[in-house]
């Protein structure tokens, strides 16, 4: 997987994050989803077929999370720590290079 563009931020949060309850449940360390990985909500996961991909970036642009990065060759990389399986990428992909498959854990 390509390196997260938020690497430095992630390291900072991992260092400073505390689960201690604050008044008003205020989150004082922005980006606490570094710890609370929201990809666990997913039911369907995108399965990527590199051979069909034309590198149009539509999946990358449409991903609302965003949980799709681009690798050195500009192919999409799916970050399953945060992908919620909404399927927008598969729906937008013009070459059907992304297929949503039921995830079995």
């Amino acid at each position, binding site marked *: 997987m390509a390196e997260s563009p938020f690497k430095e931020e992630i390291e900072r949060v991992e260092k400073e994050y505390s*689960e201690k*309850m604050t*008044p*008003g*449940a*205020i*989150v*004082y360390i922005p980006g*606490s989803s570094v710890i*609370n990985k929201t990809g666990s909500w997913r039911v369907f996961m995108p399965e990527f077929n590199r051979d069909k991909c034309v590198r149009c970036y539509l999946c990358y642009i449409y991903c609302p999370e965003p949980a799709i990065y681009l690798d050195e060759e500009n192919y999409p990389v799916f970050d399953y720590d945060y992908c919620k399986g909404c399927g927008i990428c598969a729906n937008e992909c013009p070459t059907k290079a992304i297929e949503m498959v039921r995830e079995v854990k």
Partner: protein
Amino acid sequence: MPMRKVMKGNEAAAWAAKLAKPKVVAAFPITPSTLVPEKISEFVANGEMDAEFVKVESEHSAISACVGASAAGVRVFTATASQGLALMHEVLFIAAGMRLPIVMAIGNRSLSAPINIWNDWQDTISERDTGWLQFYAENNQEALDLILAAFKVAEDERVLLPAMTGFDAFILTHTVEPVEIPDQELVDEFLGEYEPKHAYIDPKRPITQGALGFPAHYAESRYKVWEAMENAKEVIKEVFAEFEKKFGRKYQMIEEYKTDDAEIILVTMGSLAGTVKEFVDKKREEGIKIGAAKITVYRPFPIEEIRALAKKTKVLALLEKDISFGIGGAVYADVGRALINEKEKPIVLDFILGLGGRDVTFENLDEVIEISKKALKGEKVEEVSWIGLRKEIL
């Protein structure tokens, strides 16, 4: 020198707001509280008050604007009543859960249906579980004082909860009484600036307020509100003591009146306490040993004070302008909670009266005493009685 002015309860509330110097006031007009924001908008327009007056399209928006402003870190005030408060309902939980010390004046009014603009306590009583502190004023002076005290308690770091101060619709909101307006300088000393350490906006310190709370965190956040409400009991006593030192007027969680040798104690709230005290005097002249107690702070509920009160008497007669259908008056349930595990406890009876602006007369209170006396003699009486009910039209 403090200034004495003759004014309506609503004006007293507006004056309290002026003295407290909130930075934001967001409010929507509703009978009987309209005059509060009206007077405040006048203060703002005249340059007597340096506040942002936000005009909104509903009470839901009013309290939402207050939540936003308070979350940004400034002192906030609003006013409403009845249906307006009910419309605010969901946001009241949010204000408490986010620990925003907003202060709200309420002209206590009944709820529809049938539509009725007059006094009872159903509006604030129905919000008792929202996490807001609740104060009830007996007269216009108390309305002003208890709004100032509410700010001080709400903003205390050990509390950080919103607060509402109720004063009876029309009986106080629209009745003129002499009110002492404290010196601005003293109020400034008493309240100080609101400088929150938890919730404020600073681009150098980005935070998330009102985030999702999963099952792993929700209960702990709610527990913190419970803990804050428990802390408030001590903080309120401190604040009332400081208030007395500064302004010379004494407040207590529960104010007792001629209770020491009383066989029956009438317990009530708000302006009804004035009527009841006069009734106690009259009955004492007739040689009947009764006393009165006024609940000034309803949330947090003064459990210890109720226990102490219960030790002094044989009958606690609760006079309530509210009803929780299917159980009785809300205060009845609360007093029950306070006494249930006490070894010795008096007979506790509940009396529902004065709903929707019905006057509470001495004849009504005589009926309360009659029923209480019967219970004292061991006769069977209703635990919850509706007093002054026009049975002929039922």
